[in-house]
């Protein structure tokens, strides 16, 4: 006998659990199948625990720079175990919260791994034991993704780590190489650097954080280097010579090989979707380069089967996963929904200095054929930034000269991840430069730079 539901969601990450709750709100009977941990990567091994760690490393940074504010502290120290256990505690607390939310919304949770058994059918198993057979008219796959592994960068989680181990170190490495300078790599680089490790970042592209605006990348790189981090761009890790408690990393740059001996290596070279062992072969669902192929409403090639979040492709962000969940479920419920506008998905990196952006970069705007106006405003010229002692950074805005459409916004500096949503709201409401110019920003705040940047794009900035 199988249990019947209107909707079954496979995977309890920010994509899956949000979809389940929304569906229940819309009156569907919903089951959620999660094999490991409610909250997914985001909550257990991603967004949340890393932010807890980054906070502690920033405190360490502050303790070593107290002089600037008129304080002296002698012999500060930290206990790595405590930092890690704090981070784990934060994740656990939130995971418990998700379980409560699902219960409150009458979502039936199955503890096990789901595997499709033809359209509309799902087997749930754990440790080779059958948990349940489920049937549903609609099945959403939200199985997420995992770290990509490269052959010449063999991960052993002892000397060469992926993010899970990097988040739960037993001892503090004195030196390390971070391979990859995307959001995940650069956050770990920042974390370990601020705790005192010697960090070298190796990036295959010609700049760090390659998805960001060129100017932002350049400012970030300069800042990291000023802090004492080593950055190698256009560089490739060719191989590793593992020692007992250290690794020799062979790096090729400009046709020349360098060998670097470090305690540990972190591999952050992208992710692959969790498309295996979920029974896709029993359906018409298509997979392209480890990601499930969907249409703009998250529908796969098999009617009644949908995919959302990391398993459905880039950008690999928790809020994108959740939003897809909402769109997908509302579409199933027959509500009038619009597809997601990918140009309105903000991206945030919580390194030091922080980076946040939404929409087109300057180069992409030009490539798309726009006639653009660009505004910039430096932290240096903002009262609040100076008062905070955070004078490094910039807010950059890009407008379509013809219509005044805000095409993109790019920020680097303190707290920019908390500010970007101002521009996201603006973009979602389709404001033009005019409304932004007439918006009143509170003084003194960092957000005033967002105003000035817009003004600057039209040669009206007041404070530069």
């Amino acid at each position, binding site marked *: 006998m199988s249990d019947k539901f209107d909707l079954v969601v496979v995977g309890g990450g920010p994509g899956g659990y949000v979809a389940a709750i929304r569906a229940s709100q819309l009156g569907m009977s919903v089951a959620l199948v999660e094999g490991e941990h409610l909250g997914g990567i985001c909550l257990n091994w991603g967004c949340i625990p890393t932010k807890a760690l980054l906070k502690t490393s920033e405190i360490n940074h502050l303790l070593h720079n107290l002089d600037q504010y008129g304080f002296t502290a002698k012999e500060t120290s930290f206990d790595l175990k405590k930092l890690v256990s704090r981070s784990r505690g934060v994740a656990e607390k939130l995971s418990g919260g998700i379980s409560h939310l699902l219960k409150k919304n009458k979502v039936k949770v199955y503890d096990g791994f789901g595997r499709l058994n033809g359209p509309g059918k799902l087997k749930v198993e754990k440790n080779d034991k059958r948990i349940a057979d489920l049937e549903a008219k609609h099945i959403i796959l939200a199985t997420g993704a995992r770290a990509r592994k490269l052959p010449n960068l063999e991960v052993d989680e002892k000397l060469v780590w992926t993010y899970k181990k990097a988040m739960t170190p037993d001892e503090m490495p004195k030196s390390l190489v971070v391979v990859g300078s995307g959001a995940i790599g650069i956050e770990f680089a920042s974390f370990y650097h601020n705790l005192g490790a010697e960090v070298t970042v190796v990036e295959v592209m010609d700049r760090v954080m390659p998805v960001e605006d060129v100017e932002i990348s350049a400012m970030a790189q300069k800042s990291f280097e000023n802090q004492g981090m080593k950055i190698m761009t256009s560089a490739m890790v060719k191989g590793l010579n593992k020692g007992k408690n250290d690794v020799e990393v062979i790096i090729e740059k400009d046709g020349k090989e360098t060998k670097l001996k470090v305690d540990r290596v972190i591999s952050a070279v992208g992710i692959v979707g969790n498309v295996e062992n979920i029974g896709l072969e029993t359906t018409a669902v298509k997979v392209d380069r480890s990601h499930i192929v969907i249409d703009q409403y998250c529908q796969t090639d098999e009617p009644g089967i949908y995919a959302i979040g990391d398993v459905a492709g880039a950008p690999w962000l928790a809020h994108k996963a959740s939003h897809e969940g909402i769109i997908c479920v509302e579409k199933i419920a027959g509500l009038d929904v619009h597809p997601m506008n990918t140009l309105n998905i903000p991206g945030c990196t919580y390194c030091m200095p922080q980076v946040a952006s939404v929409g087109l970069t300057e180069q992409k705007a030009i490539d798309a054929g726009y006639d653009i106006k660009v505004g910039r405003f430096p932290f240096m010229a903002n009262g609040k930034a100076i008062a905070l002692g955070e004078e490094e950074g910039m807010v950059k805005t890009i407008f379509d000269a013809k219509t005044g459409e805000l095409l993109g916004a790019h920020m680097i500096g303190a707290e920019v991840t908390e500010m970007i949503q101002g521009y996201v709201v603006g973009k979602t409401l389709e404001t033009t430069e005019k409304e932004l110019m007439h918006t009143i920003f509170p003084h003194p705040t960092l957000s005033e730079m967002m105003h000035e940047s817009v003004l600057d794009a039209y*040669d009206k900035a007041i404070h530069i």
Partner: protein
Amino acid sequence: MAIKILMPALSPTMTEGNLVKWHKKEGDKVGAGDLLAEIETDKATMEVEAIDEGVLGKVLIAEGTENVKVNAIIAVLLEDGEDASVIDKMDLSEPKEKIAEESPSADAPKKEAAPAQQSGGTTGVQIQAPPMSEGNEYEGRVSGPKEGVFATPLAKALAEENDLLIDAVIGTGPNGRITKEDVEMALQTTGGANLKAALALPRDDYGMPPYVPEKNSNVRKVIAKRLTESKLMIPHFYLTVECELDGLLALRKSMNDKAEGAYKVSVNDFVIKASAKALKDVPAANVAWTEGEIRQYVTSDISVAVATDGGLITPILKSAEAKSLVTLSKEMKELAGKARAGTLKPHEFQGGTFSISNLGMFGIKNFQAIVNPPQGAILAVGAGEEKLVMKNGNPATVTVMSVTLSVDHRCIDGAVGAQFLAAFKNYIENPTSMYDLARTA
């Protein structure tokens, strides 16, 4: 607050006109309803009345100026006790021009110079052609594409950039808001009224100019079908009578003055009330023709034609004979608002026992409307016009309004129609005889 007097649009398609004559000079006192100026379009010359009262503070467009744009500020009216110096502080640049200047193509310093769109302390008011207008303001007001359109700023900017009439775009955003995507869609499909694109097209083989196709909405189709049937099937005849309005205008003014803003009755409200009462007096005119019987209704349910973007619609004032003028006036405003917003419920516009169509605000002197079946008659109301007449051997000016009753001869005979009009005329010319005028309930 000084009031800007704007060049009125005398018809929905009018974009500019000639200011032929000023009937008031700077410094003259102006009363609501006073003749202010004469305006000429390619179709007609029309008189323009003041809506508000005060002193004509400044004339900005001189007599004899040609091609004055609709909504241009032609004069400033000062309120009682206001000093002419306030005019100097007012922003008198043309709103239309400013929009152009603010457009992204203009260079920055020039934009800097353009003052803010709305300056404090003054209100922009559009004056309207002759007296019937207030109850039907919506019919006379031709809003530029910028006003009252529920669209995102970006959608508006994009439409403007592409010379697209955004009013024609269907919004699919939250609550029907027009978004960038909607405008892009409209730009792709020719149905989007893209005039610029259409202008670039060649004439066809028969020498006809390019056109913008607009799909017939269901409302449009229903209107077409019913009017065709009515005009073909119903034996119409027409009766016209002229009514003097001066007493009514005076009463209206004193009522509105006393109301101190609590309500504002229009000439059209009086017309509705008078029709309802006259139908009560001459019930044989309050009828519908059906094959088996003629139905004589016991209440006067008045359908009032309202022009909307989607076409003509006739919300109904039920049992209008029993309602006070003020109640009718408020109900009419509410229904007209709903009609324009497209939120009328079927019971609010289906039915009715008698119709009124008022084109006075467009300066139409008189016209013949098409009967709205199964109703037996419809009253077409024209503009009030000043006339020189002999009264007791002396010349006098009176304001005269011409109304024409279109009648379905199958159920209403000539004499009945005439009796109805006599009763109607009597109420209009002796408005206090509509006993419950001032009752506000």
